[in-house]
């Protein structure tokens, strides 16, 4: 009689242990699911509260996207005056008083030269243009 009781209690204990083991595995999956839910919720929250690009930020980004030609700036700092002085004399519209077409070209060139007097790269381009269009020898 006592033996059967002991066997039954052992069986019962095994069953209980079996249940608790199953419960542990259920808990394990429960936590994984919870973590996934939290990650998904955070991602959704982040996408909803996406940082808006303000006007200030837009202005800043546009300004930073421009490339700076430092070589041209430094070259212009020391060598643009000489070239400008040469070009402003040789390309002056008054040097073409009889030829109307050349006079107009010289006027446009002269305006460009005055506008870019501190940009040696542009002045060199204008010099080439003057050579071709006005047949000026430098």
């Amino acid at each position, binding site marked *: 009689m006592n033996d059967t009781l002991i066997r039954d209690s052992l069986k019962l204990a095994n069953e209980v242990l079996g249940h608790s083991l199953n419960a542990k595995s259920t808990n394990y999956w429960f936590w994984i699911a919870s973590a996934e839910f939290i990650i998904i919720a955070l991602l959704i929250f982040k996408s909803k509260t996406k940082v808006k690009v303000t006007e*200030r930020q837009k202005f800043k980004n546009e300004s930073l996207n421009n490339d*700076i030609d*430092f070589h041209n*700036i430094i070259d212009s700092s020391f060598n643009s005056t000489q070239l400008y002085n040469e070009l402003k004399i040789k390309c002056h519209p008054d040097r073409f008083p009889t030829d109307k077409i050349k006079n107009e070209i010289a006027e446009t060139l002269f305006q460009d030269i005055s506008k870019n007097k501190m940009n040696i790269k542009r002045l060199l381009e204008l010099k080439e243009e003057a050579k071709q269009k006005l047949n000026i020898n430098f």
Partner: protein
Amino acid sequence: MLSNTWNSIVDWFSDRSKRNNLVRSFNESARDAFIQGIAPTLLKANISKGESSYKHQFSDWLNTGYRIQAFTGRELSKNELIYIGQVILADSNLVRKLIVLGWDTLEIHGDAGNYGCRWQLKDYIPLPNFNPKNNE
């Protein structure tokens, strides 16, 4: 709130890096120009304290001056200093970049003598008036 703070921190570090790159690029170009004989004077850029009364909406808290020093070994005339400054200010892209990276003052100095020239950068580019309430 947390996201804004995080973005501000990231922006701050990113701006530091861009400021240093801008100074480094200028110095490299100036050195190359000097070595190749394009420029008779070695120019060197660095960051200075700046002038507090030149502040604008993009100005940094500290060190808002972009200083260029010309190593000539002689005292530069005022016209020479002004011309170097004007060439830099004539490049609107560079001025815009300097402004948005927190600089508000451009300074040109020689390596000898006690004087230099300085300009208020915001005078050379139209800055839009941003409403601070929309930028939070």
